[in-house]
């Protein structure tokens, strides 16, 4: 059987399938891959004000290895600090799932999805901060220099 027990386990009992609210300012969303390639991973993280990842969800269009890689990723993300999420390497995922060489790219996709989700959250936060800074300083309403 080319599928390891770990891959089958994640496939048959995937962790954290679902969606978070994309509009939520505390949610980071990463979508990587392309339908033409046969792999699309959507990974989302919910982060609190102390940068703890308190929830993670995924949806995947792809083979069993892609599903297992993204399921495992959400498992590893929950409870991590936001910046620690970037420590997760595709090689760790591949090793944990015993991915065969031809499926390594699935773990790469999962790592990319994590990065994309983190980047999305940071971008949202930066935009909010910029908007807050750009608003008139408190006490002087409507006054222009």
């Amino acid at each position, binding site marked *: 059987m080319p599928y390891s027990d770990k891959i089958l386990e994640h496939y048959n009992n995937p962790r954290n399938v679902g969606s978070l609210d994309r509009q939520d300012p505390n949610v980071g969303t990463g*979508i990587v891959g392309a339908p*033409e390639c*046969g792999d*699309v991973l959507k990974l989302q993280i919910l982060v609190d004000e102390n940068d703890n990842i308190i929830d993670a969800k995924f949806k995947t*269009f792809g*083979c069993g290895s892609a599903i297992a890689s993204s399921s495992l990723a959400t498992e590893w993300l929950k409870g991590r600090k936001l910046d620690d999420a970037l420590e997760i390497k595709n090689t760790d995922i591949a090793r944990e799932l015993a991915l065969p060489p031809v499926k390594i790219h699935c773990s790469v996709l999962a790592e990319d999805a994590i990065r994309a989700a983190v980047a999305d959250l940071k971008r949202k936060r930066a935009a909010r901060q910029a908007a807050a800074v750009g608003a008139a300083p408190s006490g002087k309403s409507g006054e222009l220099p």
Partner: protein
Amino acid sequence: MRRIYLDNNATTQVDPRVLDAMLPYFCEKFGNAASRNHVFGWEAEQAVEQARQQVAAVIGADPREIVFTSGATEGNNIAIKGVAEMYADRGRHIVTQATEHKAVLDPCAYLAQRGFRVTILPVDREGRIDLRQLEEAITDDTILVSIMHGNNEIGTIQPIAEIGRICKRRGVLFHTDCCQTFGKVPIDVEAMGIDLLTCSAHKIHGPKGVGALYVRRKNPRVRCAPVLHGGGHERGMRSGTLNVPAIVGLGMAAELCRLHMGTEPARLAALRDRLRDGILSRLEDVRVNGSLTHRTPSNLNLSFAYVEGESLMMGMPEIAVSSGSACTSASLEPSYVLRAIGVGEDLAHGSIRFSVGRFNTAEEIDYVIERVVATVRRLRQMSPLYELAREGIDPASVVWTRS
């Protein structure tokens, strides 16, 4: 674990009656069919000649026109390379089509590298060639047209009799790969103007490793250079000691097909239609690939939108089918046959081929319907593409980041 086999286009279970027919030729009547001087050789030769008749009877040929091979790949190689070599001074142009099996396309590519010109006709959305395009493609330089009777992936049947008529009129030899139709769809080499025909035992509940190549001997007499040189067996067309037990198996498999031609194709089609209707009535966004009307009776090829083929197969490990998904191919390329009929790559990834056979039952089909429907539904719940579609966003309109 219960196992259901629905991959009969890939290979088939050997019919017990075929195995029974083969067994004496291993330990009792084990002679070399070319041993002309003793009873061991005579009885082996007799068995081979009976198999020749059995194969010929399925296609309306003369037994002397049947060459035994190691299978359809070898048969296709002999037909294409052998004709090219023999007729090279008459012309160097070959016409074939885009959904042929690799065992036809690769020999053509090989010849293209050696000074032959190969025209690969496109197919329409059902997988059929355009007869006008065939007419236009044939020139004074054309020596061979090779067009399969039924496609192995999508089941589409080509207009063989019309192709044969065109080739006859234009003086071009016509070869057809009949692996998927031999014994399932009526074939008459005279009525259809066929000059060379390939078939394979393991597609008709016979053993692997043996097949037959029909080579016309009259009107016209077709000459074919051998691919294997040696003792001159099979009228010089295929040297090598005959695999007597396997040939006996091929003969019996052919005979069983012929005897059941009145009922079996209809039974296969009924099972296939039951499977198709059962799935299509319960799931949306499922597309049938290949012609609905010109189709081999046992084949069903479906694309399930928003779901990938390998993950679908993983969800029903007790059911044997195959997929056009890149993930299931060694080259990581999606099926070229599906691409040729215009199926988008995303739908090609979500394709599954079901092919019924002699030993499948209605009860198995009903079980498979349940499992397919349940697995597709589960995977769609997990699919970001299904989510987008439900939100009313066409995934084709999204700009994807490829990784």
